[in-house]
């Protein structure tokens, strides 16, 4: 590894998480690019590691994942504080002393509590830290000053759409002090501005990526679907939450059946809303037509996408939606709502259809159109595939991230010209 490369720490709540596979991928790809990347999480459990066998078996990568020490119960945290202090003073004396000195001026004795929570980060002595979700960044911008490092904050949807809606100043320190913001798309940027982010704030818009080599298939388009012999196959992929608007999807399926389009609807994912959805399925007379299939692995999801004629995404609130990207990459036409970044994700009329959110009839109309026209399904599938390749390739996303880190660290006086060059070289190599 090139010693000159800056050290970047990604911060997440929990790692690895199956529904946040994009974090795993990003972490892995940055590492593949030769970057000195680390990941710090607060929670981690063995069962989720087993879902990512190659990640778990790769020693190099696994050593780069760091788990914070427990902060509950408090008594344990208090007992561990001296050990954490000693450890930090031995491993990174300069950074630790600076953190405590500057921190004491700012927070007084409270700095020891913060020190304990931040000690994992202090040990890593990073050049840049990247909060992968806005919600965990709020209130922690002092780290830039105390650790003398740059800060990136990603906003992915939930953080802007839901977190602390009633608190007008929740993200104030992020807007003021983060060095650069990363957002998935224009919609989230607009939402950030609505929540007080100034227009001139440095930002990059980098959409999620899809592995177009993994998500691909030779799709055979069946004509004459929508009969009992061959029902129209509708698929949704996403956690079972009210935000995904599955009730409107179910109502759309009910409408299709009423209009004589025989269909079969599968939903991949699990969540608390299963009870509500099972009730809706029964109330709408859809028992036997709708299958809640629970959590599926990436391979199984690919198979479901091969099975399907259309991907339906009925969300009421959405960041960008990886499943919709994957569907396009799999040459699967998409019917989705206009929630969040979805209109940026697909191209209405080309790779699928965008309809207003909370409109079962709107969804049903477009589904019916696709059910009746195999030629349209083929065309939209093809255009989806092209779009995924031209706009959402993983390699391109990595180059954008590397360019962002380069831009972030370029102005840093600690970063020599040599370092900047090697980082640039790494980004161009990809």
């Amino acid at each position, binding site marked *: 590894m090139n010693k000159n490369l800056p050290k970047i720490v990604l911060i997440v709540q929990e790692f690895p998480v199956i529904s946040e596979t994009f974090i795993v991928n990003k972490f892995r790809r940055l590492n593949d690019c030769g970057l000195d990347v680390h990941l710090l999480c607060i929670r981690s459990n063995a069962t989720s590691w087993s879902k990512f066998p190659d990640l778990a078996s790769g020693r190099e990568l696994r050593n780069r994942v760091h788990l914070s020490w427990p902060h509950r119960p408090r008594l344990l945290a208090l007992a561990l504080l001296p050990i954490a202090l000693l450890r930090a003073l031995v491993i990174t004396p300069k950074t630790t002393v600076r953190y405590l000195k500057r921190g004491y001026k700012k927070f007084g004795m409270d700095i020891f509590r913060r020190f304990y929570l931040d000690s994992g980060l202090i040990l890593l002595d990073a050049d840049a830290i990247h909060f992968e979700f806005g919600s965990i960044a709020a209130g922690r911008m002092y780290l830039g000053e105390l650790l003398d490092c740059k800060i990136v904050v990603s906003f992915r949807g939930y953080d802007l759409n*839901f977190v602390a*809606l009633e608190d007008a100043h929740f993200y104030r320190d992020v807007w003021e002090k983060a060095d650069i913001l990363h957002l998935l798309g224009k919609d989230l940027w607009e939402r950030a501005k609505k929540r007080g982010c100034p227009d001139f704030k440095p930002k990059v818009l980098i959409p999620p990526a899809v592995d177009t080599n993994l998500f691909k298939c030779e799709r055979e388009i069946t004509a004459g679907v929508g009969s009992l012999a061959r029902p129209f196959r509708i698929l949704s992929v996403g956690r079972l939450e*009210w*935000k995904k608007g599955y009730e409107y999807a179910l109502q759309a399926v009910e409408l299709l059946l009423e209009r004589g389009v025989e269909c079969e609807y599968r939903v991949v994912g699990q969540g608390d809303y*299963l*009870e509500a959805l099972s*009730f*809706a*399925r029964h109330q*709408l007379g859809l028992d036997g037509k709708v299958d809640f299939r629970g959590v599926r692995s990436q391979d199984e999801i690919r198979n479901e996408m091969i099975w399907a004629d259309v991907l339906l995404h009925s969300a009421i609130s959405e960041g960008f939606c990886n499943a919709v990207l994957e569907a396009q990459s799999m040459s699967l036409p998409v019917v989705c709502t206009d929630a969040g970044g979805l209109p940026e994700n697909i191209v209405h009329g080309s790779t699928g259809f965008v309809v207003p959110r909370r409109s079962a009839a709107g969804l049903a109309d477009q589904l019916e159109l696709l059910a009746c026209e195999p030629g349209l399904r083929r065309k939209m599938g093809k255009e989806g595939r092209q779009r995924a390749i031209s706009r959402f390739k993983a390699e391109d996303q990595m180059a954008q991230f590397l360019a962002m880190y380069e831009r972030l660290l370029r102005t840093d006086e600690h970063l020599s010209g040599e370092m900047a060059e090697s980082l640039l070289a790494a980004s161009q190599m990809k």
Partner: protein
Amino acid sequence: MTDKNGKSLRIVLVGISWPPETFIEGLIKGLIEAGSEVTVACDEKPAASWLPHPQFHWLHAPVWRGSMAARLVRTARMRTSVPSKGSNDIRRFKSHVRRTDGWRERVQAWHLLLPFAGLRWDIIYFPWNSAAISYLPLFELGSPVILSCRGSQLNIAPLDPMRSGLKEALQETFQKAAAVHCVSEAIMHQAAKYGLEPEKARVIRPAVDPQFFYPPADKLQTDQFWVTTTGTLTWPKGHEYALQSISNLRDRGINVRFNILGDGPDRQRMLYTIRDLNLEKVVRLHGLKSQEGVRELLQKSDVFLLSSLSEGISNAVLEAMACGIPIVTTDCGGMTEAVTDGVEGFVVPVRNADAITGALKMLWEDPQLRRRMGKAGRQRVEKSFSLVQQVDQFTSLYKQTAQASH
């Protein structure tokens, strides 16, 4: 209330928390007034205003919580304080506990059952299906058991694939119960699907106190259209459909205000949807309100809206009717047993914001209609949903059940 020997009936309520829901509190008061002895089995000690009453008793039934050590000690202490005449009960419970897996679960089962060992009542009453299911061994004590079917525990929970075994458990409780109270005809039919025999079922609809909930003397005339709903912020209430219809009304130029009383897990969902539909100036989330606060808002309102996807029968609607305001309700559960479409208000299909919009618009345009329907609602509550009647029906249910088991 006394049995044929002139002794007062002893009833125990199991599976409640204290303070109880308003309708349970009303029932307890009514039963005591009618001469019964009521024991409440719960963790929290009832307020001092209740305890001195000679016909009111509290049985401490602790909740399974605290550190594991504390739970073990508590269980052991309860075991030692079982009276000697409780040894038969202990044997009965033991055969039940043996069937549970895992030592923690066994201790938990003992923890649940021990407070009842060696005690007897004329009636064991479970106000919820879920309580009856978790206290199944109490059915073996020899006292007749009555349980209540109220709503979501029959309409929703059994459909949840994550709750396997619930259907069988419901069946078992219905089979072993001496009588089953249903809050509406609709709930009774639902219970029949899980094996409730019609002879055991008794429909007693909820009640309101028409002396407490009453129409305002004169209503302030404003240019605003006040729509109100009360209920937990949770998905079975279908609030999202209500918000869409309010948004529709606003888009049609109606100066509407929507009051939502209640709190719950879906608060964030509500906040999001209100913002998403640009309803910040139109909708107000009041949170939890006292009974007086509810009454005050109802009296100020033009219409009460119930957008539920599932109900047993809504008490909130009855309270609104008592306050003399017209109702727009979805057609779910037993709602049509309280509201006749076109008489006390309008009944619209579930999950249909447009239908709600249409009904509200009709009421907005016609103040005369609002008055007429409000009046009809008040009359219907006085006639069919009064508290006095309800307590009478319950006392006779208890009495008959106790007598039949002798």
